[in-house]
């Protein structure tokens, strides 16, 4: 049954990605601003401009350009970046790991923080502590990630300078990484001091990205837990003499976590979208930071590759969430 879900979703994903490809390709060429007009010099003649367009393959009819691009994609070639002078596939492969590590760490922090606060809030139900948690959670929910980023910079870079602001690793560290999963690789190879340095660079962007998601998780999970805590099976466990913490974690949480998991999956896609601004603020070399430069410079091949990649990530996350929810909930699995 799960296999059927996977196959069905994969087929839909292909259709969605094809649609995304068409839309991004057409939009880029309809919206004013093309890469050649960005770089031509004041004294360029029409022949010079035509030559530059030809150099970047922008002189062919739109359908021909689209055909060339699609043909390339099928063979794994997303074209060559106009500004970076490198294969888009190579660039994305270089930068994606940085964003994946950041997003994954932010997700872990968000789930731990959001889940922990939700459980604490449930345990403090109808006490002043619950009001405090709800109030703080509302603030976390209302403040967007980039504002958290600026606040963290003010606190941990300007006021108490204990955290590095920019980059992914200290530039003076000579490190020979085999992959671009710096954090993962340094941990796996036992280079823990390097891992520590990388983590120190990730603290602020991670927290900035995690806080709004943690607030969403807290709000939904706490509500679900409260509903679960008045169900008969919890009542029965309470009569048996289970302590409150055990009631929440062992009895209520498993049944309450479904909706939160589904929403977390959706929110995780927003978190990845949030990396665009957060990576910029912290000069973090991921695909979000790359995306801003690509758009500013109207680097068509790179923008197209990035949009497709973002689309693919979103689709895969949603498939993953659906499968997880289906696994946890037999009614959905057999529906």
């Amino acid at each position, binding site marked *: 049954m799960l296999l059927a879900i996977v196959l069905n979703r994969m087929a839909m994903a292909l259709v969605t990605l094809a649609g995304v490809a068409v839309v991004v390709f057409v939009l880029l060429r309809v919206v*004013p*601003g*093309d890469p050649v*007009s*960005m*770089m*031509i*010099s*004041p*004294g*360029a*003649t029409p*022949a*010079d*401009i035509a*030559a530059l367009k030809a*150099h970047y393959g922008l002189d062919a009819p739109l359908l021909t350009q689209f055909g060339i691009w699609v043909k390339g994609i099928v063979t794994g070639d997303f074209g060559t970046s*106009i*500004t*970076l*002078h*490198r294969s888009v596939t190579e*660039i994305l492969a*270089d*930068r994606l790991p940085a964003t994946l590590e950041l997003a994954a760490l932010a997700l872990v922090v968000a789930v731990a923080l959001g889940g922990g606060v939700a459980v604490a809030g449930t345990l403090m139900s109808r006490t002043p502590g619950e009001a405090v948690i709800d109030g703080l959670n509302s603030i976390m929910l209302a403040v967007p990630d980039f504002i958290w980023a*600026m606040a963290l*910079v003010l606190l941990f*870079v*300007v006021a108490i*300078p*204990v955290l*590095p*602001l*920019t*980059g*992914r690793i*200290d*530039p*003076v560290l000579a490190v020979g990484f085999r992959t671009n999963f710096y954090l993962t690789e340094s*941990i*796996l190879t*036992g280079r*823990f*001091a390097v*891992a*520590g*340095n990388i*983590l*120190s660079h990730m*603290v602020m962007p991670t927290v900035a990205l995690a806080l709004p998601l943690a607030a969403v998780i807290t709000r939904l999970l706490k509500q679900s837990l409260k509903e679960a805590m008045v169900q008969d099976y919890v009542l029965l466990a309470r009569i048996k003499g289970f302590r409150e913490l055990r009631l929440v974690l062992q009895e209520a949480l498993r049944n309450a976590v479904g909706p939160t998991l589904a929403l977390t999956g959706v929110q995780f896609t927003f978190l990845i979208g949030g990396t665009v601004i957060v990576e*910029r*603020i912290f*000069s*973090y*070399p991921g695909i979000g*930071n*790359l995306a801003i*430069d690509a758009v*500013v*410079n109207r680097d068509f091949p790179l923008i197209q590759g990035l949009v497709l990649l973002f689309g693919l990530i979103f689709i895969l996350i949603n498939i993953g969430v659906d499968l997880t929810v289906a696994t946890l909930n037999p009614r959905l699995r057999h529906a």
Partner: protein
Amino acid sequence: MFNVTRRQALAASGGLLTTLLAPQRFAAAAAGSTLNIAYNVNLPSFDPEIGPSSVNPTIQAIYRSVFDQYIGQKPNLSFEPGLLTGWGWNNDKSKIWMDVRQNVVWHDGSPFTPEDVVWSIQREGKQGGGNPVSFIWAGIDNFKIDGKRITADVKQYDPVIFKWMAFLTGYVLPKAYYEKVGADGFEKKPIGTGPYMVDAYEGNAYLRLKANPKYWGGKPPFETVVFKFVPDATSRVAEIESGSSDITLEVPYEEYDRLRVKAGLKGECHPVSDIAQIFITNGGVMDDKNVRLAMCHAVDKVAIVKRLMRGYGTAISTLEAPGYAAFDPSIKVTHDPALAAKLLGASGYSKAKPVKFTIQTTRGYKPKDYEMIQAIVGMWRNVGIEANIEIYDIAKHFELRMSHKLAPAAFYNWGNAIGDPTCSTGFAMFSKSPHSAWHSDDLDAKIGPLWGEKDEAKRIAGWKAVDRYIAEQGYILPLLQYWQPILYKSDLKVIPNGSGALQPATLVKKA
């Protein structure tokens, strides 16, 4: 399966804590022979001759750290020997000659030769090769090498060809190395003859350079230079304020004023070769000379500089800023609201019946760009001009300008690091240039003959006359010359560069 032992976990925690709780990290960067620069743009590509980066003025400081130009340029915008020690024209100005510097080596130790110079010019001039100013280089042909001297024919006389050799894309690349490793190989491991060698690079994060011990210009002042790519201005402020970087630039003027007096920091804010202007596109109400002149006379540029730019700017009346070759201080477009109202009245406009048009501007692309236009629109309203502000991004500006579809008025900034009038008034006002907005035969007739004028004094005088004519006709609204704020640690000495390029090899030293 991977298991983390308690010992390993402790080591990782220790690493993290050591990094977090080590404030001396900041002090060490300043005290050692490493210079950390919080730089305002990213370096997308190492090729200084091809693609958009090659014509991005802000990136030139990085290129000049790794590569050398044919001809160098001093901070006051005058020229000096670079990889060419001498250059000039023959008597009838049909040929050029260039003497190539001797005993220079590339970063890989191979010798620099005249063949490198010829190959670089030919590569830059190849139409369709990706050089955005190939038309400049394509005019040089039929090279001959005799010892250290290169001679070549020029297709037509170009008075600024040597100035371009110190300007955008005018770099020398290693012929043999490039042909051996190819474009991809060069991007991965670029070499030049410049004062610094590429040591490590991570796009959108940093570029680490190490001193070139064999540099022909002498040992660079720092063993290591790190360009941190920090495009966010607030983050650059935090970098310098926290001590994480030793020097930064292009911070908001308010922050500059706050930090330059802070203990341990110093500041320099000097004029650079970049101006703000409002393009006027002909057609509609802009064909009325009274309207154009009223637009110009209604704007109080001094007040804009004083109140919006905190005094860091120079009001200008032409596209030639002070320090440019054709700057003429006698040309003045005064702030005269009464005259503006009178001119509008002569065309039937008043505050009650204002002339209406759209003005386009960027927002946040240049310091106070949108605020400046808001102020100007307010000044215009007081004399009978009602302008509707439309915000666009810079890419849209370029495309609209190239297709002559800008709004009647459009804000833009214009750089001219070589200070020659061809690169300011010439390209901004000549209708054949894809970057001009005002197209009229009367102006073309005055500009046209100046492109190939062989008498330099006559040429500069000609451009001054064109500038005066433009001011009298109100074909463009020049606003101000930008000043560049630089903040740095007080143990450094910084020489401001008129071109705005913050070059660590020559302009930043230990105090």
